[in-house]
């Protein structure tokens, strides 16, 4: 044996360094082929060393074999890579414009009113509420009478009603669903009723003859005003964040007693006063209260045993506040440039 194993391995290292240098400098297919012949052909440099394998001591063979194999496959891989690279660069002669915009599939979007309504629904369903619905074309009985608003009640003034016949009308609020639900089921009741309502308001930036509300109703033993405040607070926090505050003001609805209006702290300025909240720090949301015993009487619930709360909210109002939309009409124009923003 004229060379030590170490010497051979050192030589292999040098060959490797040399090969890497040469392949780095190599620029065309022909040079690459020459390089392949120089190193990898039967008479090439690496093959020459393979002949040495038989000459070293048996115990040294595995190590040398491994080293030789590594070098060989390295050379093969680098050459193959280079060949492929050269072929690719050859193809760019026909220009492929990768910079063209991606072709997007058509994707629909949900209407902002529905987005807000979906969010409200999911908040309440996550708190154990079920969704109920009722007809838009409603009877006087459900829209007014069974809600303790008899004929000639002054509260009818604030409901500018579209009538079809004496007894058939377009519902002015979603509250009729309260009565319909209580007629259908016994307590416990825990529902929200989203839906479309109508009032005979001349169209302007804040009025449209059709609009959407979400009604809430909870009836059971032991339901009270503090629970109502709790649910409204929980809703407000889920909708607008942990920092939101709520405020209840006494008000009047014939179908609740006590009645309240509830406000959220302004989610624009946080309560310090701004244009959105008109400087008050509060944003009026809607009405709420404890179900009036007269309403329970209509649905044959025992008002000594059961108590309940009801609340409402306007979808347009919340959507307008949330997206800072200042004209309700855009919801109903359905201009693509509007719809595509949501």
């Amino acid at each position, binding site marked *: 044996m004229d060379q030590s194993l170490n010497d051979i391995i050192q030589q292999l290292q040098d060959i490797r360094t040399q090969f890497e240098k040469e392949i780095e400098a190599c620029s065309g297919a022909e040079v690459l082929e020459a390089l392949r012949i120089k190193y990898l052909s039967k008479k090439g440099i690496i093959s020459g060393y393979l002949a040495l394998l038989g000459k070293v001591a048996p115990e040294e063979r595995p190590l040398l074999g491994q080293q030789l194999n590594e070098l060989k496959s390295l050379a093969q891989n680098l050459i193959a890579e280079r060949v492929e690279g050269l072929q690719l660069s050859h193809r760019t002669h026909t220009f492929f414009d990768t910079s063209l915009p991606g072709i997007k599939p058509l994707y629909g979007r949900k209407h902002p009113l529905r987005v807000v309504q979906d969010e409200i629904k999911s908040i309440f369903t996550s708190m*154990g509420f*079920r969704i109920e619905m009722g007809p838009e074309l409603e009877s006087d009985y459900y829209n007014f009478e069974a809600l303790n608003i008899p004929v000639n009640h002054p509260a009818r003034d604030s409901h500018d009603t579209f009538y079809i016949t004496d007894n058939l009308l377009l519902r002015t609020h979603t509250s009729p669903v309260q009565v319909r639900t209580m007629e259908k089921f016994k307590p416990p009741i825990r529902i929200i009723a989203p839906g479309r309502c109508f009032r005979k308001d001349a169209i302007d930036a804040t009025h449209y*003859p*059709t609009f959407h509300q979400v009604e809430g109703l909870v009836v059971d033993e032991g339901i009270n005003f503090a*629970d109502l405040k709790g*649910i409204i607070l929980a809703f407000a926090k889920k909708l607008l964040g942990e920092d939101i505050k709520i405020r209840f003001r006494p008000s009047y609805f014939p179908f609740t007693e006590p009645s309240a209006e509830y406000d959220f702290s302004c989610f624009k300025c946080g309560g310090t006063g701004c244009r959105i909240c008109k400087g008050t720090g509060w944003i009026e949301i809607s009405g709420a209260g404890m179900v009036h015993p007269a309403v329970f009487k209509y649905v044959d619930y025992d008002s000594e045993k059961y108590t309940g709360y009801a609340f409402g909210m306007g979808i347009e109002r919340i959507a307008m506040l949330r997206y800072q939309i200042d004209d309700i009409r855009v919801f109903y124009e*359905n201009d693509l440039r509007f719809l595509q923003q949501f």
Partner: protein
Amino acid sequence: MKVTLDWLKEYVNFKLSAEEVAEKITLQGLEVDGITYVHYDFNGVFVGTITTVEAVADSDHLSRCQVDVGNRTLQVVCGAPNVRSGLKVPVAVDGALLPNNIRLKTSTIKGVASEGMICSAAELGISNQSDIVLELDNQIPDGLNLKEYLEKGEAVIEIDVTANRPDCLGVIGVAREVAVFSGSRVKKPEFNVRENSDQHVDELIKVVILNPENCPRYTARYIENVTIGPSPLWLAKRLEAVGIRSINNVVDITNFVMMETGQPLHAFDYDTIADGTIVVRNAKPDESFTTLDEVERKLDEESCMICDAQKPVALGGIMGGLNSEITGSTTRILLESAYFNPDNIRRTSKKMGLSTDSSQRFERGVDYDGVVYALNRATALFCELGGGVAAHGYVDNYPNKIEKTAISLRPSRLKQVLGIPIDIGRIEDILRSLEFDVNVVNDVIHVNVPSHRPDVSIEEDLIEEVARIYGYNNITGNISAVIKLDSRKNSIESFSQEVRDISTGIGYLEIVTNTLIQKSETRPFCVNEPIDIRNPLSEDLASLRSSLIPSALIVARWNLNRQNRSFKLFEIGNTFHWLVKGQQHEEQTKIVYLGTGNIREGIWAEPDKAIGFHDIKGDLELFCDRLNVRNVDFQDSSYSFFDHRQLDLTVDGARIGCLGSINRNIQKLFEIKNEIFVAELDFHELLKHKEWEKTYNSIPKFPSIFRDLSFLVDVDVPSKRIIAEIWQAGGEYLRSVKLYDLFTGKQIENNKKSLTFSLVYFSEERTLTEEEVDSSISQIIDSLKQKLNINLRT
């Protein structure tokens, strides 16, 4: 309802600003809409006293007045009849600015220099009184800037009074609310009525009530020697501040007392009342009557009329009559203060379409015990400000005395409703502060409701009273309430969510449109009778849509007119029609799809590929598949709003909806030129056919065999027939038939098309042999040849 801060201070002591009062009453239930400050539109007007008055030569009405305005004396020429020495008047000096941008300059009138102008109330924009100069209160010091004097402290608080609180349609009612938080009590003004003890009212006025159910109480007074004239400044100013025009002293006084107490009053010219007799009765059939506003009104038998011995003189509680109104020459007055049945007033007011300050108060319920106070208060003012003298006593016809409502409040019930206990002593204090009579027996609070609170009638009303004063915001929300889940499933809701998710997923934009529509726009889509609104907002919103198609077309038109040319839209919404006109209606939920323009509008790849009939059809097929609605098929249809490209969509043979291309007539009606494809499906019918359960089908273990077949077919043979035939002839291992190429053109003969189908075969038990598939294929070819005379394309 507007009140001023100063006016409130007449009845209750407090030191808060208007903003603070507004905040507090809002939290107590009187919602404040806004605070404004009284503003007078003039400048350079000062208070002065006329020291001398001389006639101007060559004039029959002009006077030369010397006016002391504090630091100097001005000479002013004035034509008003009421200028006199010692009179306190407003004087506009040189350079003063009067309303409507009139600037005053020193001038010479009939040769006499005039250094200013003594102003009438009209010239200052305080009232309409223009024929005489404004007479000011003698206590106002000369030289005071009148604008500053008038505007000082006059913050106007506008309250949105809810329908249940008629008491707060009077300033005293609002003062009661202020008294609760300022810890004081309301003091009503005290006064003496100047009466002529020789003359008794019973000899002058007789009141007969024939309909006590509609007019439970009628009181009246007689006042004579009244001089109709301008109101004093304080009165005119107070009314103007709350939005009531000053007319004359008598009218102003009745308005003032109404604003103060909430009790509407009516003053008749006594000389027009036949026999001094008032008869209250319901109107007669076909009776008509001309009210103060000179409108002749048709009455009905439920309208409550105030009449004299011969004729009606007022529409009770709503408006007086033209035949008995106060005029400039009135000297004798019959003053009415009454309590009318709220329901009846409201009914008549609605029926007549006549809502007045008076009817608004009566229909909510005035203070039945406060009727006489208001009568006397106004009488005293007639005497004080109009020089009148009242006859002794008043008429009070009150056949059935209204008893105060008695209610009991159990503290346990209060806790049940509010969720918190409130100490019984605190409850008593709150109710007393609201002027309720309170008596506690065995821990139950017995209450007599004051006559000015007709809204309080049950225990819950008292609970609200306690809660609103205790403070809604002092009741802590219970956020950790145990939830009793209402777990009844709502399949409609989840189906609707699925429909919307799939529709947006296949590229449709969700729209929300108006239910109200023009009749001519819904009619073409309505098989039944459309439903009209009896009292529409306008003609173009006078019907309920009977289909969502016109709604979607309106949105399409809107966008097409705004250069939005390509889009796919959908909506879930309700439609309406009569089943039996006027008696039985149907409300349905529909889903509409609309597509127009190019599939890839604005995208560089294939930009001109238009949305076609089969795109919408494919969307529907995919939609039904995703919804797990099986056995979907299409049938020929004949809708008058589509052109020849139209189909019914059926599921298990039942019609679910339609699709098609909008025809020319409809395009014309909606002023649309573009090609529009529309589909409409019945939501609930579709829901019926939805399969909620999904079960897994195992993936075939054995390989499939694929074959393609091309046929040359007459162009008018529907592909559906061929596919049906392939299925029929294909045998049990044929698993899928798809049309994957349709070709017409030069390479094939005229009136022919080439259809290529891709067929898939497999078995769940074993690997099929080529021979088995070949035999199926030849059966298909034979069958098509035999039955449809179709040949394989070679």
